[in-house]
C-alpha cells in the first residue's frame, strides 16, 4: 500500500527546526520580565525594586544560632575570608577598618566632595567667617570634635559631608564589637556585593557557594560554632532559587503528571506504540510553542515554559479522541474524517480563548498566549495529518469501553444528574454574588515562584540591615553618567531648600557621593595656591584668639588637594560605591537615577520646584497602578476569551440553541469551580484566570463531543469513552501539578483538575441530548 507521506516529512522538518530554536532559546527567570514593559520612569523604578535593579548584585547574610561572642567571631572570620575572594567587590560587616577607610576617603577628598568648596569660601571674608564660626563651635558641646578637625579643616568641609553622607546611614544596623548585629542581638549581619552582574546566574550561584563554603570553613575553626547557621537572601539568591525550584518542579512534577496520564492511556490503548504516538502532538506543540515565543520575544520566561506546557496539555486530548474513537472495523483515517469537524471546532475555540492573552501588557501573558496558540495549532495539525498515517492499520483501544462506563451511567440517570448539578450551580452563583471582600489576589509577590519562607527571610534581613525601600524617589534619565550627575547637582540646592522648609525630609543624591567631573574641576580650581592662601588666612585670622601655628595641617591639605586626581566611581570605597550604585545605574538605553526621599510633606511644592525631566515617583502608587492594571487585565482576559469562544461556536454551530447547549454547562462548571476555590479560603490569582481559560478550552471539546448527534450506539459510546479517558488524564496530570510549591503550577493544577472534572459532569448532564430510547 503506497502512502503519500509528505505530511510526515513536513512535520519532521518543522520539528527539527523548532528543536534547533528551542536549544538556542534564552530562558529568563526574572520576575521583572514577566511584568509589563516599563515605559515611564515610575515603572522603571518599580521594576528596579521588583527585580533588584541597581541592587541586583547584593547578597544579604545573617549568622545566628550561637552565643553572641561566637557569632561575632564567625562574622569577622567569614568577612576576612570573603575579602580575599575575587568574586566579591565589597564585604561589609560594620568593622572598624571599613568604616575607617570610608572616613579617610571622605576626609582626604573633602574639598572635591564638598559643594562648599567655592572661591568665596577661600576669600579673606570667607575664611574669617569660617574661623569665627569655628570659635563658636569650639565653645559648644561639639567643641571636642571641632578641636580635632579644625586645624586641618577650618572651613568645615568634612563636617558638612559627615552630615549629608552620614544621614542615610541612620537606619543602618547597630555595631557591637566591630560587627553589625540585628536589633534583637540574635544574629550578626553582612552585606556583600558580587563582582559578577546580577543576571549572570551561574556566577551568582558560584558566589553563593563560595559564601557557604567560607562559612563552613569559618565555623570549623571557631569553638562552639558547630550549631551556627548562615542565612542569605538578595536578588541573586532569589534568581538562583527560582531557577532551581522551577527546574525541579517543572521537570519532576511534569514527569510525574505525565506518568499519571500515561497510566490511564496504557489502560485504554494497551499498546506502548499507540501511547508513544499519542504523545507526539503534545511534544510537537511544546517545541513549536517555545520556538514561536523565542522568535517573537527574543527570550522565553521560565513561567511561560512551565505554564505553557500545561496549557497545551489540552493537545493530549486530541490524540485521545482520535485513538479512542477509532473502531476495530474502520481505520484511524476514517475515524479522523468523522471527528475532525468537532476536533477542529474544539481547537479553534481554545485558540480564540488564548488569543485574548496576546493583547496583554504583561509580557509573560502575551508569551503564554502565543505559546498556547502555536502549540495547539501544531498539535491539532499533527493529530489531523500525521498521526493517522503513523498508526498501524487495525489499531483500536481495547480498554476504552470500560473506562467510559461511569459516563454511560450518568447518561442513564440524566434527569437526576441535571437536578443535582443545577442545584450546585445555583448555589455557586449565590455564593459568588454574595461574596464580600476581595476576590482577586492583589499581592504582586504571590506571583513569584519563591516560597513564602524565603520571601519572609528577605524582608527580615533587609529590615535588619536597614535596607529599606523608600516610598518616594526622584527619578531622571540621562545619556551618560556625567549628565546624570550634573542633573543631580542642579537638584541639590533645590532639595536642601525644600528640606529646610520642611516640604521634604532627608534626601540622597548620587552627586553627594560622586560629584560630576565638571563640579570637581571647579572645586579644585577654587583652591588658592599656597602663598595666596597663607596671605589671605593671615588677614582673616587677625584679631581672633587662635594660636599662630595651629593651622599648618590646613595649608598642607589644601596644597595636596590642588594636585589630587579627580574622583571616579571606580575609586570609591565599597560602602560608598554600594550606595552610589543603588541610585545610579546604567540601562540599555542610558543612565537612570533613582534618588530616595525620606519623606514628602508637600508634594505640590516639590513638583513645582523640580526641573523638567525629573519626576517624583511614589512607589506605593506605582504598585497600586500595576495591580489595578493586573486586575483589569485578568477580567478583560476572561471576558474577551469567553466572547471569542462564543463567537467561534456561533459561527460554526449556526444555532443559538446548540451554542447554549455547549456554553452553558461550561459557564456553570467554571462558576462552581471559582466558588469552590474561594470557599477553600483563597483569592483568585491571575494564574487561576488562565486556568479557567484552559478549563473552558478543554471543556468545550467535551461538550462539543457530548452535543454531537450520533445515531450509531457504538460510535456514541466510544465518544463517551474518549471524553472520560481525556478527563481522567487531565485530572491525574493537573491534580499532581497542584502539589507544586510554585504558585503558577499549583494554581493552574488545582483550577484545571477541578474545572475540567466539573465540565465533564455538567457536559454529560446538560450538553448531551436526552436519551429518550435506546437505538
Amino acid at each position: 500500500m503506497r502512502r503519500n507521506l509528505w505530511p510526515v516529512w513536513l512535520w519532521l522538518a518543522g520539528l527539527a527546526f523548532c528543536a534547533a530554536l528551542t536549544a538556542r532559546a534564552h530562558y529568563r527567570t526574572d520576575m521583572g520580565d514577566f511584568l509589563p514593559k516599563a515605559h515611564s520612569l515610575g515603572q522603571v523604578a518599580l521594576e528596579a525594586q521588583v527585580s533588584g535593579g541597581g541592587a541586583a548584585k547584593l547578597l544579604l547574610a545573617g549568622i545566628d544560632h550561637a552565643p553572641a561572642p561566637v557569632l561575632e567571631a564567625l562574622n569577622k572570620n567569614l568577612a576576612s575570608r570573603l575579602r580575599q575572594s575575587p568574586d566579591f567587590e565589597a564585604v561589609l560587616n560594620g568593622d572598624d577598618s571599613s568604616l575607617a577607610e570610608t572616613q579617610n576617603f571622605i576626609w582626604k577628598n573633602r574639598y572635591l566632595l564638598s559643594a562648599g568648596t567655592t572661591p568665596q569660601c577661600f576669600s579673606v571674608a570667607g575664611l574669617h567667617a569660617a574661623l569665627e564660626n569655628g570659635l563658636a563651635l569650639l565653645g559648644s558641646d561639639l567643641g571636642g570634635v571641632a578641636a580635632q578637625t579644625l586645624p586641618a579643616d577650618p572651613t568645615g568641609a568634612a563636617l558638612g559631608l559627615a552630615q549629608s553622607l552620614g544621614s542615610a546611614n541612620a537606619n543602618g544596623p547597630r555595631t557591637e564589637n566591630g560587627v553589625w548585629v540585628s536589633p534583637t542581638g540574635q544574629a550578626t549581619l553582612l552585606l556583600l556585593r558580587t563582582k559578577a552582574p546580577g543576571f549572570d546566574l551561574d556566577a551568582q550561584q558560584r558566589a553563593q557557594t563560595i559564601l557557604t563554603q567560607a562559612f563552613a570553613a569559618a565555623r570549623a575553626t571557631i569553638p562552639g560554632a558547630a550549631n551556627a547557621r548562615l542565612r542569605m537572601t538578595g536578588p541573586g539568591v532569589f534568581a538562583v532559587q527560582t531557577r532551581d525550584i522551577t527546574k525541579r518542579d517543572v521537570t519532576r512534577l511534569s514527569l510525574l503528571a505525565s506518568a499519571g496520564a500515561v497510566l490511564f492511556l496504557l489502560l485504554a490503548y494497551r499498546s506502548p506504540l499507540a501511547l508513544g504516538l499519542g504523545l507526539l502532538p503534545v511534544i510537537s506543540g511544546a517545541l513549536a510553542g517555545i520556538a514561536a515565543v523565542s522568535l517573537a520575544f527574543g527570550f522565553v520566561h521560565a513561567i511561560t515554559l512551565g505554564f505553557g506546557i500545561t496549557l497545551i496539555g489540552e493537545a493530549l486530548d486530541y490524540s485521545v479522541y482520535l485513538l479512542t474513537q477509532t473502531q476495530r472495523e474502520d481505520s484511524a483515517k476514517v475515524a479522523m474524517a468523522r471527528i475532525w469537524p468537532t476536533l477542529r471546532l474544539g481547537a479553534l475555540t481554545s485558540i480564540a480563548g488564548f488569543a485574548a492573552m496576546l493583547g496583554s501588557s504583561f509580557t509573560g501573558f502575551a508569551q503564554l498566549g502565543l505559546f498556547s496558540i502555536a502549540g495547539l495549532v501544531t498539535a491539532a495539525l499533527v493529530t489531523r495529518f500525521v498521526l493517522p498515517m503513523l498508526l498501524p492499520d487495525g489499531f483500536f483501544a481495547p480498554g476504552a469501553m470500560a473506562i467510559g462506563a461511569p459516563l454511560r451511567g450518568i447518561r442513564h440517570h440524566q434527569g437526576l444528574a441535571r437536578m443535582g448539578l443545577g442545584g450546585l450551580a445555583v448555589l455557586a452563583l449565590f455564593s459568588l454574588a454574595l461574596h464580600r471582600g476581595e476576590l482577586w489576589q492583589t499581592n504582586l509577590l504571590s506571583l513569584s515562584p519563591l516560597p513564602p519562607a524565603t520571601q519572609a527571610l528577605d524582608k527580615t534581613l533587609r529590615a535588619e540591615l536597614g535596607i529599606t525601600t523608600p516610598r518616594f524617589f526622584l527619578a531622571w534619565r540621562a545619556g551618560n553618567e556625567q549628565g546624570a550627575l550634573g542633573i543631580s547637582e542642579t537638584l541639590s540646592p533645590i532639595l536642601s531648600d525644600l528640606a529646610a522648609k520642611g516640604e521634604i525630609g532627608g534626601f540622597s543624591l548620587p552627586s553627594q557621593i560622586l560629584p560630576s567631573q565638571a563640579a570637581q574641576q571647579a572645586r579644585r580650581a577654587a583652591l588658592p595656591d599656597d602663598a595666596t592662601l597663607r596671605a589671605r588666612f593671615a588677614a582673616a585670622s587677625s584679631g581672633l584668639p587662635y594660636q599662630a601655628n595651629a593651622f599648618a595641617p590646613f595649608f598642607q591639605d589644601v596644597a595636596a588637594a590642588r594636585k589630587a586626581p579627580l574622583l571616579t566611581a571606580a575609586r570609591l570605597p565599597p560602602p560608598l560605591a554600594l550606595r552610589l550604585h543603588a541610585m545610579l545605574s546604567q540601562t540599555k538605553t542610558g543612565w537612570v537615577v533613582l534618588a530616595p526621599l525620606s519623606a514628602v510633606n508637600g508634594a505640590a511644592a516639590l513638583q513645582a520646584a523640580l526641573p523638567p525631566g525629573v519626576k517624583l515617583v511614589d512607589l506605593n502608587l506605582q504598585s497600586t497602578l500595576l495591580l489595578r492594571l493586573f486586575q483589569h487585565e485578568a477580567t478583560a482576559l476572561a471576558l474577551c476569551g469567553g466572547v471569542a469562544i462564543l463567537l467561534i461556536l456561533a459561527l460554526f454551530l449556526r444555532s443559538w440553541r446548540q451554542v447554549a447547549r455547549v456554553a452553558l454547562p461550561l459557564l456553570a462548571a467554571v462558576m462552581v469551580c471559582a466558588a469552590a476555590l474561594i470557599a477553600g479560603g483563597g483569592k483568585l490569582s491571575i494564574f487561576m484566570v488562565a486556568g479557567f481559560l484552559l478549563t473552558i478550552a478543554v471543556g468545550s471539546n467535551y461538550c462539543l463531543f457530548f452535543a454531537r448527534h450520533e445515531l450509531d450506539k457504538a460510535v456514541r459510546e466510544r465518544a463517551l469513552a474518549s471524553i472520560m479517558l481525556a478527563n481522567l488524564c487531565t485530572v491525574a496530570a493537573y491534580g499532581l501539578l497542584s502539589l507544586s510549591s510554585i504558585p503558577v503550577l499549583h494554581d493552574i493544577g488545582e483550577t484545571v483538575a477541578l474545572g475540567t472534572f466539573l465540565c465533564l459532569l455538567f457536559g454529560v448532564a446538560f450538553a448531551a441530548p436526552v436519551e429518550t430510547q435506546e437505538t
Partner: protein
Amino acid sequence: MRWRFLACCGMGLLCPLAAAAQTAPGFTLPGLMADLAQVRGASASYTETKSLPLLTTSLQSSGTLDYRAPDYVRKTTTAPAPQNFVLQNGIVTLTLNGQTQHFTLAQAPQLAGLVEGVRATLAGDLPALRLYYNLSLSGGPEHWQLLLHPRDPALAKMMAWMSITGTGDKITEIDSADAKGGETKMQVRETTQNAP
C-alpha cells in the same frame, strides 16, 4: 563617624584632679553609688571654662543642667550662644545654630562611653560605669572625687580622664581632659533636688 563620636566632649565634664588618694574609713564606692541612686531628679546651674591648645584664650559658657533618674540628662547653654543637649532613652539630641542632630548611643559605642560617664554617675549605676571606665574614689562623704579612666583605647583617644567631684549626693564639679591637652572645668551649683 569620628567627628560625631566626639560630639559630646562638651558635655561638659571637666576637671581638676584633686588628688586625695585615699578615702575616709567606711566611705566606699558602692556606698556612694547607692546614695546617688536615691536621687530621683536634680536641677543645677553651671559655668564652664574650656581651655584648648588651639586658642590663646579660654572660652566661658554657662547654663543649666537637668537630670531625671535614671536616663534623662539635659544641658542647656544660655551664654554665649544658645544650645541644647538632651540625652533620653539612649538617644542624644543636639540643637546648635538652629540645627538639630540625633545620635543613638547604640550606634556609636564611643559616644556612649562619654555620655555614660556622667549619666551613670548621676544614676549611681556602678555596672554601667565599670563597663567603660576604671574607677578610683578619694575623699570622704563631705568631699569626694571620682576619677574615671577610659578602658577602651578608642574612647581614650577622645578623653584622657574625667573627674567628678561632689558633696554627699550632690555633684559640684565635672572636669575632663582630652588627649590633646584641652581641658574643661564645669562648676555645678545644684538648685533643686527631688529625693524620693
